[in-house]
């Protein structure tokens, strides 16, 4: 039996009828065709599926769409504003924070969350903040530098 949900995704209000067991990530990918959010492990270990729900980074592969009912979701597709990249997106590009790109959307969402909570993190704090996201390509060092770059840009951007 399908259930109605009202969700705001990337600033667009949506009403959809979904099966209660439909995972949030499948709702985003298959119902809304927002395929930038990826599935890497189905057990909330890898973080490839990370999206923002009401400002909190959540792993959309272990959450039902109905649990997000009434919420505001931001996915990687909605992170840039008016065509301008988010500072963390820019940092990933500038600092070669990605190779195959599969973990990248989730990693960027986690990086953005990290900077929301701590605008000037140390390298150790960045590494700790990204513990819930796995990358097999980069060895993380350039990702740490990408987040550092974003933190600096956010500071200079405000001044």
């Amino acid at each position, binding site marked *: 039996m399908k259930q109605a949900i009202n969700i705001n995704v990337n600033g667009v209000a949506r009403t959809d009828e979904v099966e209660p067991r439909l995972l949030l990530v499948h709702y985003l990918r298959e119902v809304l065709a927002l395929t*930038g959010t990826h599935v890497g492990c189905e057990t909330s*270990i890898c973080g490839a599926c990370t999206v923002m729900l009401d400002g909190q980074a959540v792993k959309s592969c272990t959450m039902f769409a109905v649990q997000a009912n009434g919420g505001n979701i931001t996915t990687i597709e909605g992170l840039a504003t008016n065509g301008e990249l988010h500072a963390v997106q820019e940092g990933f590009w500038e600092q070669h924070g990605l*190779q*195959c790109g599969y*973990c*990248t959307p989730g990693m960027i969402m986690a990086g953005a969350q990290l900077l929301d909570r701590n605008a000037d993190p140390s390298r150790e704090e960045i590494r*700790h903040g990204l513990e819930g996201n796995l*990358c097999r390509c980069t*060895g993380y060092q350039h990702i740490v530098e990408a987040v550092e770059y974003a933190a600096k840009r956010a500071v200079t951007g405000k001044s």
Partner: protein
Amino acid sequence: MSKFVGKRIKRTEDPRLIKGLAHYVDDIRLPDTLHVAFVRSMYAHARINGVDAGEALKAPGVVAVYTGKDVAQKIGPVPCAGALPDLRVPDYRVLATDKVLFVGHPIAAVVATDRYAARDAVDLVSVDYEELPAVIDVEEAAKGRDVIHEEFGDNIAYKLTSGEGDIEAAMKSSDHVVKQRMVHQRLAPIAMEPRGVLARYFPGEEELTIWSSTQIPHLLRTQLALMIGIPENKLRVITPEVGGGFGSKLNVYAEEALLGWISIQLGKPAKWIETRRENMQATIHGRGQVGYVEIGCRNDGTITGLRYNVFADLGAYHQLLTPAIPTLTGLMLSGAYKIPAIQMNVTGVFTNKMATDAYRGAGRPEATYVVERAIDLVAAELKMDPLEVRRKNFPAASEFPFHTATGLDYDSGDYEAALNKAIERSDYQKLRAEQKKARAEGKLVGIGVSSYVEICALGPSQAMPAGGWESATVRIEPTGKVTIMTGASPHGQGQETSFAQIAADELGVDINDVTVIHGDTSIVQYGIGTFGSRATAVGGTAVLIAIQRLIEKATKIAAHMMQVEAAKVKFHEGVFSVAAAAAAAGDSSTSTAPSRTSVSIQEVALAAHVAKEIPPDTEPGLSATYFFEPKNFTFPFGTHICVVEIDKDTGETKIVRYIAVDDCGKVINPMLVDGQVHGGIVQAIGQALYEEVVYDEQGQLVTGELMDYALPKASQLPWFELDRTETPSPVNPLGVKGVGEAGTIGATPAIVNAIVDALSQYGVKHIDMPARPEMIWRIIAGG
């Protein structure tokens, strides 16, 4: 001169990836797509007495269920390209028929209208199993008490001896012979994007398109055409964005053929996206060797000979390169040293597990680990500094090309220079002094060194199962935009950028005017693919030479446009020009004054296509294709130094410093090279400290998810201190060697050597990987 090559250029592929707008297989959505889920064996070894799909077929949304019997005569076996003398090759059907041989072995394919329905129906398929004894331990398997493939009589797939020199005499003449058993545990490659296949058959055109997350689109096309029985020119393989491979997608898998065949049967698109559990069970594993090394040396540290007797855990079946991987180990057993006699005796053994195959490094990390650990064992035996044993046995820079007793000719190198740079960067003497102080304070600090050589740019066709060349087409469109089609198939390496760097410099165009196309067999000329650190050295060279040919032709057209002899035309930074004096003299053949003294390559491209102003003997259009066949492999090298501190209370190893000096020849883009080195080292750290595919005695896969299989996390890693030396390779005109696997090959022994050094006060001479805290804690507690 070069504006782009050698520079830190941001990747052109990144914008789509950081915006979430790229397309991996599962992101491609076609109308009426059917979804496939697999029934897989829950036993390591069992007879199948029956498969009943009756209930599944009644389930909502289910369209079809195919079992082994349905497809056995329709789809050819999963291919193995490894050709070794007397190799036993089991008949590897895409779905199990009468027996299952590993946990995860596919038994039936369920096809339904959506992925949830397909997954639900998997549970409704009833399989009647009769469990058989599981053959798990590789050394026990070699004894053959229980046999996996009855037709062979035992579990031995092959035995092979390789190497040169009189090993017996070498060992007899040694002052010392040190022996050690070494285990290279099974690893899972874990590309973050699991495998996935989408197949679409067009019944009218009789054409099949397969999107697959693969490293080898063309080789896959050839093999799938043979398996499915469709003409190769009616089959199109597309690799969209590929989310990592590390060798695991350098293969031809049962699911790829099945999906194509199912789409043909049902006339609709069919999609299968691997779950992580399936990925752990049924995507190839790496490593899996249990070996016994013997190394002979003189009192002064000179190595006299090395023997490696090894059991290779091949798994139940051969995937594409399964039996060939241990032979790469044999090739690299000379490491960075002059060793006059080397012998490897390999026994390839079937076990009730998933096949092992190429995982980043593919046989070479095992060799480097054996050699670099053995060198440290020699140092310990002789009470010498491990650096001195290394120095003593390096070939000098003047000795290259250097012939090894494994039958290779190393192209170029200066091993001592890389070692010296690593010593300098790490301030090695100070590290040793600090270690002494730390030990006095009761701390467990260890320093480990690894001087590695790897074999890359695979490779000359004579040494490869299916051709070792690579192809490129370079075309300048009428509007002056440059299109490169490469047979390489990058999946994170960044060759859309690095190949564009080469092209932009050679053609004198803006890098943003260059597009690199790869991974579509209907667009790109036949190619080999991306693996074995080959894409830049072999594929990049193909791009370079294709451009040179294109410029030759463009020069003729430019000369015609300027009405001068081609020999008088110079090409520089995108402009063909003729010197003023030559221009004044005009073209001797026509004696008319030239109308212009320079034309841009874009103007030439337009002229070549409009074809009104080209020499009469010249073909219209402006493109060139080149297939580059390398004459040798390349041999990158370097020295890594690792400092660890072990927590005495928990046994946990922390890497305090990591210094890597790598020499991958000429560098096209230093930022991309650093990224490759970082990623490679972290996979080595994974092997050294965390990762292991574990099957229990019954052959159950204990590490079946990322909850159980420990990938390194950001918080567990040190800050890598990288440096380089640059010794160009003479094998290709770019002078590049390759870097994709360097970290994984070079780093593992540096870490383990450091741990052994830290634990030396407990009499530890060797430990097996992964160096789990519990094992180390037991050593400390026991000591």
